[in-house]
């Protein structure tokens, strides 16, 4: 598997002049950037910069007061999260948002929900069409489980799993949606070096094998420099820089923001 040659496509998602405020607090001010197909984009910035809010806007959780969002060239009006899901956007969360009452397998199976078609009567009877569908989707889910190496915990209730594994299950669930755009909110938070390496490998594999576009929020600079194609830097709700990792790293504003020089 070569990571060197990668064909990055055209614009998949574009945000223009997004401004988001909660009461008097401005979470995002006039943010514009784009995410290109098949690329890995890192969104970085100090805490409170508005990174998660940005993802929430893309996802449809928050509605910006100003600005527009274009997905695949089509402008989106007020978006709801389940519509975003239908359109092929999947997401993980900073504080793992798994269904604590269900097992790993069931959690990932919920990711297949949009692809399941049987109606309530077929489900009530179960044998026949619904059973065939359940088996077919189970196969897909098992492939993902193999891919992320979580076979051993497939029947464990996720509430009992350690944090690192929970994050992996959440990633699996997002992958089960077969998304075009995968939004990862600090997927490596709280992990040790080994776990981070594993997660990086998975992210790269997903991007490579399935061509999934990935936007991730990440604090670890090493990870960002290593795996991302482009980086967007936010601070206090504004965009500071936007470009390939090496360029961004040398950017004076970015350095100042991280070292704490006041503007």
């Amino acid at each position, binding site marked *: 598997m070569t990571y060197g040659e990668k064909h990055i496509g055209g614009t998949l998602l574009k945000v223009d002049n997004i401004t988001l405020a909660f009461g008097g607090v401005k979470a995002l001010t006039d943010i514009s950037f784009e995410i290109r197909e098949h690329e890995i984009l890192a969104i970085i910035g100090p805490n409170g910069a508005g990174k998660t809010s940005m993802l929430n806007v893309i996802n449809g959780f928050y509605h910006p007061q100003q600005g527009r969002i274009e997905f695949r060239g089509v402008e989106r009006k007020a978006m709801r999260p389940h519509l975003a899901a239908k359109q092929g956007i999947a997401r993980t969360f900073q504080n793992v948002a798994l269904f604590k009452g*269900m097992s790993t397998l*069931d959690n990932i199976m919920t990711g297949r929900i949009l692809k399941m078609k049987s109606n*309530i009567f077929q489900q009530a009877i179960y044998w026949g069409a619904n059973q065939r569908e359940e088996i077919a989707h189970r196969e897909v889910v*098992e492939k993902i489980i193999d891919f992320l190496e979580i076979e051993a915990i497939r029947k464990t209730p996720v509430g009992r799993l350690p944090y690192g594994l929970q994050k992996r299950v959440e990633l699996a669930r997002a992958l089960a949606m077969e998304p075009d755009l995968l939004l990862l909110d600090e997927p490596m938070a709280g992990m040790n070096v080994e776990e981070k390496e594993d997660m990086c490998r998975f992210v790269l594999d997903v991007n490579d094998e399935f061509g999934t576009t990935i936007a991730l929020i990440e604090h670890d600079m090493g990870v960002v420099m290593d795996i991302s194609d482009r980086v967007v830097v936010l601070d206090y709700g504004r965009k500071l820089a936007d470009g390939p990792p090496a360029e961004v790293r040398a950017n004076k504003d970015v350095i100042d923001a991280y070292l704490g020089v006041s503007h």
Partner: protein
Amino acid sequence: MLYREAGQFKTTYNADQAIFPIRQDRIGLALFGLVAVFAVPAFASNYFLETIFVPFLVFALAAIGLNILTGYCGQLSLGTGGFMACGAFFSYKLAIAFPELHIVIVFLLGGLGTAAVGVLFGLPSLRIKGFYLAVATLAAQFFLVWMFNKFPWWTNYSPSGVISAPPRDVLPGFAVTGSGGDPAVKYLFLLVLVTVLALVAKNLVRSRIGRSWMAIRDMDIAAEIIGIRPLWAKLSAFAVSSFFIGIAGALWAFVYTGSVEALAFQIDRSFQVLFMVIIGGLGSILGSFLGAAFIVLLPIFLSNAPGVLGLQIRVEVIAHLEFMIFGALIVFFLIVEPHGLARLWQIGKEKLRLWPFPY
């Protein structure tokens, strides 16, 4: 030694996802089925059948219904009584208007009508959650019972206000409703009906719709991002739940008590079914049965225990004791095993797997 999965390898996903994947479980179930179908009617007295087995089955169905809404979908409901009343009265009006209709069809239609009412009172769940939703269901409870009580149209303008359920046969010659029915016939009818409906419930719960309910229960925000529409999931939970509860209400009136009256479905009925679900286990079909059995048997146990133990306790004191024990048990279960008897059952099976070894 007996209860081992060793040697039972699942080679298909099908086998893995079966309701009873372990062979010993299937054998146990078969034995249980034989006892239930043959031994019970043959050996149990009419009294037992009428006061224990029949209400047990009716309550189990109601508990399954409430479990779907509260246990699987996480929407607290205190309106069970009101929905049972819907099922009873809808079925009554249908049975009177269409005497040719087979009683099971009447019950199913009554259930469908209740499902519609359930959806109506479930609409607020889109804006409100948790205890607030409990208020909406309380509104349903009080309003429905008031309505069935207040308007004589529901009781066909009967002068006494209490009506008896019209006698109907399930198969020619076998009456299951009304006062003429043989308890054994009623029992078997209920056994078959409730088993089929429980199977339907189990199937729904392990399919896509069940997963969407559980997702809403666990984290509705996360559910939305994977594409579940909260509106759809909650309303379907209300609909299916009310369907089951409505049929339970109709069975209560037609098969168990033989009379259709709104007073049988007041707020304490709602609490009773809620207790079954809590004690039996939230989010478990088996738990619904266990909880129903527990709540049905407890008063009988309490009223007979003093006599067996040689103590003399006055009747009212027993009633008060019942309340106290109920309350204490609820608290006990919530502390010790919030997943109820069903989880205790599971733990028991796991211990059995290891037996006679300690671990």
